[in-house]
């Protein structure tokens, strides 16, 4: 009798455990993110942009760089119905007669790469420096943080412009059509913010008892930083990253618009605005179309960033 009662109890306990939905912190965050319509929309846009960038040679009808034999320059998009249209070019042509659709498609490659590569460098550098400074403290912290303060003190965009403008004509500045220089410049300007954020997080986290508990089982400082501190500091860092990506895209677009970004003829959205600008009155679409592309991608990233912030820390929701 007693045994049946106890087994029944055990079974009930088991069922109870099974019935409860197992959900990790990250699973929970993902669930909240997926319920956010704007974020999902943003994600779809970003994935599409990625696919377009990756498959550019397959999708683009013409070469983005070569100037056609009998250029029909300054064609307007087909839907305008003006006499300056050409059925071969859906969105018209630029001042050299190159197909705008193809150029927009190829330009998305620059924007996507510029969004992610510098952000990755920024985070690698920023997290390492911030983590080291915050965790070890003392003179190391002082030295690293004074250094970041110095970089932080420069106005962001001016600094970016100075770096790019001064190295543009060096051999390094010409690598990958100037892309490498832009990566490095954006990274140099950007990592300080991440370093400060990480340091702040680590300073608060390292006083928590679980860090002491980890020490008491014999974990090395590196292990504590990687396995205990980083995962706890990750939420705000991810949100920052989600906003850093559109920042970098905009940075490149602005540099290219000012004529110190990507070296022509490689297309980039900022570059295309730059080229279309003098003839804005004649054919505004050559400027508007790349501008719309930039806006849509930026907006998509911002939505995802907002969604991530709400998903990772529901308390921050406004």
């Amino acid at each position, binding site marked *: 009798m007693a045994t049946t009662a106890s087994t029944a109890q*055990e079974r009930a*306990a*088991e069922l109870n*455990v*099974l019935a409860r939905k*197992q959900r*990790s*912190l990250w699973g929970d965050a993902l669930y909240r993110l997926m319920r956010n319509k704007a974020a999902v929309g943003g994600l779809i846009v970003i994935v599409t942009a990625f696919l377009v960038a990756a498959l550019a040679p397959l999708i683009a009808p013409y070469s983005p760089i070569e100037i056609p034999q009998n250029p029909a320059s300054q064609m307007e998009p087909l839907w305008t119905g003006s006499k300056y249209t050409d059925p071969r070019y859906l969105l018209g042509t630029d001042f050299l007669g190159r197909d705008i659709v193809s150029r927009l498609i190829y330009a998305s490659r620059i924007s996507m790469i510029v969004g992610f590569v510098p952000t990755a460098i920024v985070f690698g550098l920023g997290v390492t420096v911030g983590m080291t400074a915050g965790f070890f403290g003392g003179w190391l912290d002082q030295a690293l943080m004074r250094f970041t303060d110095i970089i932080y003190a420069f106005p962001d965009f001016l600094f970016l412009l100075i770096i790019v403008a001064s190295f543009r004509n060096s051999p390094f500045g010409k690598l990958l059509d100037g892309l490498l220089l832009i990566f490095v410049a954006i990274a140099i300007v950007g990592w300080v913010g991440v370093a400060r954020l990480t340091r702040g997080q680590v300073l608060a986290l390292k006083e*928590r*008892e*679980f860090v*002491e*508990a*980890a*020490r*008491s*089982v*014999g*974990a*090395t400082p590196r*292990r504590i930083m990687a*396995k*205990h501190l980083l*995962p*706890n500091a*990750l939420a705000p860092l991810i949100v920052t990253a989600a906003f850093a990506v559109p920042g970098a895209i905009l940075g490149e677009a602005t540099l290219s618009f000012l004529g110190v970004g990507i070296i022509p003829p490689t297309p980039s959205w900022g570059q295309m605005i730059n080229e279309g600008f003098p003839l804005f009155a004649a054919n505004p679409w050559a400027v508007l179309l790349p501008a719309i592309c930039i806006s849509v991608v930026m907006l998509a990233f911002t939505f995802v960033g907002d969604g991530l912030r709400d998903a990772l820390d529901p308390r921050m929701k406004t």
Partner: protein
Amino acid sequence: MADLLEVTDLHTQFFTRDGVVRAVDGVTFQVAAGETLGIVGESGCGKSVTALSLMRLIPQPPGKIVKGSIMFDGQDILKMDDDDVRGIRGNNIAMIFQDPMTSLNPVLTISRQISEALELHLKMDKSEARKRTIELLELVNIPSAKKRVDDYPHQFSGGMRQRVMIAMALSCNPKLILADEPTTALDVTIQAQILDLLKNLAREFRTAFILITHDLGVVAGMTQRINVMYAGRIVEKADTVELFANPKMPYTWGLLRSIPRLDESRKAKLVPIEGLPPDLIAPPPGCKFEPRCQYRRDVCKEKEPELKHIPNSKSDHEARCWGTQEGGWLVDTDWKREIGDTRLLEAIKQETASVTATPETPPGA
């Protein structure tokens, strides 16, 4: 049998802006293999700092172990380099922390946290560590351990989390476990369960325990010997039965008087120890307990007594008190009957009231 742990003249100090805090001031004690030692005292008397010093976990700066030696298994922990100390932490000496709610990393699963020590010290791979983790959870009586290893700490109750902490401490079969107030953050029913569990584990694995607590009730059933600490010093040491039957230091009397007892008439009042523990930056020159002691005499203020064997007691019973030592005025005092000089008690009460009131007076008033 040789002692597993031998702490000699340990001094741990914190160098603060206001001065040097002598948190642990010349503490000497031993723990034999498989023995359970209780360290008892009020908040801020240096119990936890002693435990952290044993594992060299004192935050540095501001803390520093200034003097002394900690011989563990024939090696001086204070003379080891950092790598060797890490090899001991978790492996030979493990620690159970006070608050299970904050001692577990909220973003890691239970299995990953328990596996940490296994991977670090026993060099187990993931699947071995996982198997052992499940065994450990079963050992500390967590129901359906297999399903719960992948849970996160927030899915566990306080008592369960403390069981997880215990499982973590046990993971590498340490020779010594330091339990720093292991039951303070739990409610009473769970406290009893956890203490039972610790007691059984100590017996089963022959692990030595150092149980740190402010609750004499907790140590009573658990330990073989007790050290009473006050203001960074050991003021009385004896085996558990002896300490409860025949305490020999007014501070211990005070502690015992302030526990409610079921076996005494309801009229018996709880007598608290008046006053506050001394400032460890500038401790009193004589006996550290003198300012709060209702049995005090002039000697107490002038010179600090040694930790010495006490007449009318077992041979290993030592206390730091002029009154109960050879030729003292408290040798034959029955602490249960004579509460000491009540006028003195009142005076102490008023003194502390005035001291605590002063900082609150606005300047210029």
